[in-house]
């Protein structure tokens, strides 16, 4: 293989980002080519130089300032939930879960008022009769780490005075 074509691979070679075949090809060539070995040393030296740059330090209060600046920022999370539901999350849900989320969706749209001015739709607050502990869902979020599971937060509170939550698993 010629030196010019080979040297264009050196960067990826030192990063360990070549295929096994390419790696072997280069290694074999390097054994008999001092010019390419020099060239490779150079690329490696550049990489090492950049890697040894000092860690630049921000002002001490940067994180505090960033957090303060978030006060006026409205997250789009509710909008996203809304959009995701429309975009076919329903298909993955069981009929019961779908009914609940549909009802909850109405509430999400409702509670999203003011959170995101992009949502202008209004919906009446639906009542979900899915069990004694469940009343009106007030928020739906995706449960982590599987984003297909929905977490529905209900308006009433449980024994520990925490809002009731219901995880709706994605059905197959």
């Amino acid at each position, binding site marked *: 293989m010629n030196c010019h074509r080979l040297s264009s691979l050196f960067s990826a070679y030192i990063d360990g980002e070549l295929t096994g075949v390419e790696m072997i090809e280069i290694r074999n060539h390097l054994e008999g080519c001092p010019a390419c070995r020099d060239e490779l040393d150079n690329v490696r030296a550049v990489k090492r130089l950049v890697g040894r740059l000092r860690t630049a330090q921000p002002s001490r209060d940067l994180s505090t300032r960033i957090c303060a600046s978030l006060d006026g920022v409205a997250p789009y999370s509710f909008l996203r939930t809304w959009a995701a539901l429309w975009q076919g999350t329903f298909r993955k849900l069981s009929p019961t879960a779908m009914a609940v989320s549909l009802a909850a969706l109405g509430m999400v749209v409702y509670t999203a008022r003011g959170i995101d001015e992009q949502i202008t739709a209004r919906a009446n607050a639906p009542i979900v009769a899915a069990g004694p502990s469940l009343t009106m869902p007030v928020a739906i*979020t995706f449960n982590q780490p599987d984003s297909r599971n929905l977490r529905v937060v209900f308006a009433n509170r449980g024994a520990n005075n925490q809002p009731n939550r219901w995880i709706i698993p994605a059905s197959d």
Partner: protein
Amino acid sequence: MELIESITDTCRKEERQAFDELVHRHHKQAYNIAYRMTGNHTDAEDLTQEAFIRAFRFFGQYRRELPFENWLYRIMSNVFVDMLRRRPKVQIRSFDQPIQTEDGEATMEIADLAPTPEESVLSNELDARIQSALMTMPEEFRLAVVYADIEGLSYEEIADAMRCSIGTVRSRLHRGRKILRERLKTYASG
């Protein structure tokens, strides 16, 4: 309705607390990258702040199975590109100029600049030289180099952060390092 609002409020507060925690944990790392991208303190702080604001705004889109840093890299790349678009270019560069291959003498000089494994941090002077060499290359090359050599990302992760193909990452790094070497050679011999 008051009850509903107070619960929604609680959820929002929880999310906000979680996010503040992420800011405290990741802002230094973010700033360091931003500094190497922009080359100065003020822009680096602006970039960092803007990136976190955008991250917060779109926090709902963050897939939790992904490390937060990787998601932040993506946002920082975007914010950086937007930042450049808003501002007039300070330097005029001709990126298309072919870079000449250096001779053996220069080869030695660059290898000499590189610290030995015992020297973990470069001198201020050398640090400044490398930073200014970074600033002379096209931004997308610089970003790739910063992600690869400072953050130690894989090509796949860089491709994800910069929204380009792995082949593009490969070529940006190759060309970026070539430019660096060329610039550092000039410094070394001058």
